[in-house]
């Protein structure tokens, strides 16, 4: 109970610093919408074929940008800001107080998941308003919510694990982006991939969690079949991230 109280209090402070940091707040919130506008304007209008179904290009991008925003808020945001806090000595200082490390990390994860939820709502509302995109409702909404929560938690866990591979704060943007950007392209987040895409790309998409997460999210928007397998793969990556993080996570600046 005390741990919960400490965690929720920590969430409030995390939120305060998040919104006061212009870079983190702006990019986390502006990028998904910006990309949504760019991609829907840039690429040829028409339908995208997903699992034998034709979906409106705009709906396709609303779903994918929703997935992208979760990945940004959870994976990218956590990997970078926790690295910054580690290198600034804030994590080390926190370790010198009675606040349990678990409460600190839980607060970071909880906050990122709340931001992710907010972003998905904004992206879906934006898509509905300007592109008349279909948005999840009814029974699909529940399954969509499961994918969203599992995915957000898993990408937070991977973000925390990633901090242990970032040598210092200066390297954080480069290392974190290098780890996620190629994967976003290879997983069809920005440009659709399908049966005609090169085999290696389809393999990459099958192994890593981004594609599975995007498909699970899309099912809510498109009405395509929802595969529990996708949830399992994403969850497995999340558990993997947790194991790596538990072994390698550092509270002190790495030199």
């Amino acid at each position, binding site marked *: 109970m005390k741990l919960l109280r400490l965690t929720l209090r920590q969430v409030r*402070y995390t939120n305060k*610093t998040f919104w*006061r940091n212009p870079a983190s707040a702006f990019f986390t919130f502006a990028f998904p919408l910006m990309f949504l506008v760019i991609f829907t304007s840039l690429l040829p209008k028409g339908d995208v074929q997903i699992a034998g179904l034709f979906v409106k290009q705009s709906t396709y991008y609303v779903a994918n940008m929703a997935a992208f925003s979760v990945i940004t808020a959870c994976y990218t945001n956590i990997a970078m800001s926790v690295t910054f806090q580690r290198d600034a000595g804030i994590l080390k200082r926190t370790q*010198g107080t*009675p606040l349990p490390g678990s409460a600190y990390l839980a607060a970071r994860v909880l906050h990122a998941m709340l931001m992710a939820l907010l972003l998905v709502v904004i992206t879906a509302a934006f898509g509905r308003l300007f592109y008349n995109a279909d948005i999840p409702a009814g029974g699909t909404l529940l399954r969509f919510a499961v994918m969203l929560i599992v995915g957000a938690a898993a990408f937070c866990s991977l973000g925390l694990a990633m901090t242990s591979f970032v040598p210092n704060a200066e390297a954080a943007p480069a290392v974190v982006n290098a780890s996620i950007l190629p994967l976003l392209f290879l997983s069809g987040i920005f440009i659709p991939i399908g049966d005609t895409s090169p085999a290696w790309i389809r393999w990459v998409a099958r192994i890593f969690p981004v594609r599975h997460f995007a498909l699970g999210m899309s099912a809510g928007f498109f009405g395509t079949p929802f595969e529990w397998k996708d949830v399992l793969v994403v969850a497995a990556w999340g558990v993997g991230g947790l194991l790596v993080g538990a072994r390698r996570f550092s509270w002190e600046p790495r030199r």
Partner: protein
Amino acid sequence: MKNAIEIRGLRKSYGDVDAVRGVDLTVAAGEVFALLGPNGAGKTTIVEILEGYRKRDAGDASVLGFDPGTAGPDFKARIGIVLQSTGIDPYLTVAETVALYSGYYPHPRPVDEVVELVGLAEKHDERVLRLSGGQQRRLDVAIALAGDPELLFLDEPTTGFDPSARRGAWEIVKSLAALGKTVLLTTHYMDEAQYLADRVAVIAGGKFVAEGSPATLAGRDAEDTWIRFRLPAGAEPPPQVASQQPEAGGYLAVATEDPTGDLHALTGWALDHGYRLEALEVLRPSLEDVYLELTGAPGDDARTEHAASSGRQRRRRR
């Protein structure tokens, strides 16, 4: 009252480097204790073991009755830590920062009181981002005080301060000591140790080389005093005093175990010959001299000899 800190045979290595090589230390409750030593001597390693950041390789350690290697939040609730480098979220205000940390402790001090104590009342609602380095360091101290700790660790708290900021920080530490807090301080400033500490240990190469009160450290009180003056042109050195050392610029330095008698003899000699003893001064070995003698190149067998002579050289150059 019980001792705040007790350590026996403390050891710690990083790879091949023996950072701490068998240290014994007792700090009584309410005492201000300073660890004095050059960079890399092992000060921070010792302090970070006691704070619970590092695991010791060998030896016993007890801090407020806890084993710092395994102690949890109950232990952290009773200590305050000022690390060597500051790390504060830049986007919170001074008061928000102190409030954030107060909330971690069972019996915090009122936020405004802490902010006032470190002299940041005017910056109460200023973001950390906009504080100067010295002000951020004071906020560091405020955070360490937020939980009203019994024991305070200050790792080089005034490094990089301007003289008036240092004075201010010293007054804060003095006032904490007056409240009965125990303070373990590391520093490489002699005057800081001298002004603040009840007791001082000098550490070099991972070992204590001397321990005592600032006034008596390493026989400082028993060491020779020096009388120094400029020998008048053409004058023969006075026959009354032994162990004289001529120095550049026509100075003469006289080591003495009896400053009163020797000074009397010298001034008598000067008056008899009608000399004025220009630039006359009486020098007691400073804590800095003692420190430099003690912390010469570590691992060097001839170190005491070498350091002693370089210490004397320094004195002569004055």
